[in-house]
């Protein structure tokens, strides 16, 4: 009993010390002081050197917290108790947050970098007039192939994936909207369709792809493709950029008949407290040299037109990540569908996954 008590006391002491240390650390990084900015971002989605530079320039300290899905971020902000000044949701989530009254409008008069943007990425259906959001990065959904197995040029369109030659060779990103969308585009349909018959047909088409599917996984696709585990994958351009950087045999194709165009955006949650810091940061990030540096670090495509011209030629001329205008015109932005519609997509997708 005595020993038990001494163990308990020891444990409590250690916990107490750790708690105190954590408290001290938090205090020194100061999450509530006036000279801070609380940023809620995806993991590894901002060049840390820029944060240092921003702090040196303006004196604002940036606290970064990360999330790994739009839905997780939405839930956390909606439940309250957070003090995020800026968050970076994808386009359909901007619409959803806007509808749920979770966002503060942007004051355009305080933005200095708006004219740097490529107009193509402004005034989109999810936020007409950009009253609430400012594009951060954009990208596509496409096909990654390994030239040791697949001859370059043989994969150009979504339908090429259905070839019987690729039995058990394709990895799919585990995302209902993207995979259903891919099937829809391959049939010449809109990725935002809500017509049950069209969706059912897409699901039937996907089940024909099932024999070719090696696995339906998430972030791990990167690792698998780099290690040559599979010769084909369907994934997002940013993920592809990282794969290509680590394995020179990999290439990325955006099918010219169409694909998804996604845009991640800065938004200001209702709970934001540091107005000055927010606009200082937004203006800092839209400055071409900073946006270019960030784009080189993250590997996604920047919507900042001036920043793009600052990028090395091999980056900005890379059709894999900055597709030509024809392809660009065929890209579709996801519209925020009603929960019932999302459910339909998910149910059909689940049925496809259940298909042996």
């Amino acid at each position, binding site marked *: 009993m005595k020993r038990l008590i001494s163990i308990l006391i020891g444990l409590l002491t250690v916990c107490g010390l750790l708690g105190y240390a954590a408290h001290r650390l938090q205090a020194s990084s100061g999450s509530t002081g006036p000279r801070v900015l609380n940023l809620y971002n995806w993991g590894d989605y901002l060049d840390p050197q820029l944060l240092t530079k921003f702090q040196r320039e303006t004196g604002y300290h940036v606290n970064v917290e990360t999330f790994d*899905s739009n*839905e*997780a971020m939405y839930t956390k902000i909606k439940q309250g108790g957070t003090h995020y000044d800026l968050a970076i949701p994808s386009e359909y989530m901007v619409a959803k947050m806007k509808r749920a009254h979770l966002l503060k409008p942007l004051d355009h008069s305080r933005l200095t970098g708006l004219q740097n943007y490529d107009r193509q990425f402004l005034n989109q259906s999810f936020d007409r007039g950009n009253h609430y959001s400012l594009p951060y990065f954009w990208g596509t959904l496409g096909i990654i192939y390994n030239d040791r197995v697949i001859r370059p040029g043989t994969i150009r369109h979504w339908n090429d994936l259905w070839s019987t030659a690729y039995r*058990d060779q394709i*990895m799919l990103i*585990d995302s*209902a909207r993207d995979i259903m969308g891919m099937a829809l585009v391959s049939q010449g349909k809109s990725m935002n369709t809500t017509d049950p018959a069209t969706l059912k047909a897409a699901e039937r088409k996907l089940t024909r792809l099932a024999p070719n599917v*090696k*696995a*339906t*996984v*998430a972030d*791990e696709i990167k*690792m*698998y493709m780099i*290690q*040559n*585990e599979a010769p084909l994958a369907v994934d997002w351009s940013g993920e592809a950029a990282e794969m290509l950087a680590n394995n020179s045999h990999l290439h990325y194709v955006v099918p010219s008949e169409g694909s998804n165009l996604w845009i991640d955006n800065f938004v200001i949650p209702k709970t934001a407290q540091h107005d000055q810091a927010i606009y200082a940061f937004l203006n800092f990030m839209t400055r071409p040299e900073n946006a270019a540096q960030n784009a080189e670090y993250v590997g996604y495509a920047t919507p900042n037109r001036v920043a793009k011209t600052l990028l090395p030629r091999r980056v900005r001329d890379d059709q894999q990540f900055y597709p030509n205008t024809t392809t660009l015109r065929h890209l579709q932005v996801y519209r925020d569908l009603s*929960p*019932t519609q*999302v*459910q339909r997509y*998910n*149910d059909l997708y*689940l*049925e496809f*996954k*259940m298909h*042996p």
Partner: protein
Amino acid sequence: MRVSKPTMTWRTIPLTKHRTWAYFLPYGLWLALFVIAPVALIIYQSFFDLGHQVTLNNYRTYFHSATYLKMTANSAWYAFLITLFTGLISYPTAYFIHQLKHRQFWLLLVILPTWINILLKAYAFIGIFSQAGLANQFLTFIGVGPQQILFTNASFIFVATYIQIPFMILPIYNALDDLNPAFINASRDLGASSWQTFRHVIFPLTLPGIKAGVQAVFIPSLSLFMLTRLIGGNKVITLGTAIEEHFLTTMNWGMGSTIGVVLIVAMIVVMLLTGDQKVKGGTPR
């Protein structure tokens, strides 16, 4: 010794009634906050649809949808296989560890892997099973040539079994430990062979351990979801995958909760099937 226990507590209750209540308070709070409340919430949520209307539709959908029924059957089948293989490996292992000299040390080695995060273990297996992994290097070395190991049902069951083994070994080991050696000696003295001793004395007396192990392994196996993706490549879809999708992607908490309720009912059924021996008095307690 165990028989006299109830009467003892019965006598001591009036004396220390207040203290007993004080002792029960933390446990009671724990039960209410972390067992009863969540279960009640899940049941409550399962009666709401996407539009926050009270409805029984979630259950109707579940029991009328071929997808969910097939998924349930799938989950149960895989959980059964995992439990079966875990049991087949764990019983002999527990038995042999129990015979060894430094049992505590060997037991510690069995428990040790449970201290490592399940995700890390899964990633380690990805490394072992991948095209250029250790397993394929070995297969190439012995002349079989590289095989597709990852994303097969076999690899999924293998890894799940590996992860569940400690949870099966421990209760069986404890049951063996509780076994009075006098019974075994008596059985031998009365002329029973080793096999007969095992079959008629050791095995029946350690059955409660096996049942506890089955409970600890079967239920979590029903709702595995991380492994189905990482090792199974989502070629095996269990109820856990569906719950994850409903809560995180679709945000249809009602449907997710409905599946949760089905799992809880399944758990109760398994408990009823594997527990309950005490009442019948089959074991000499």
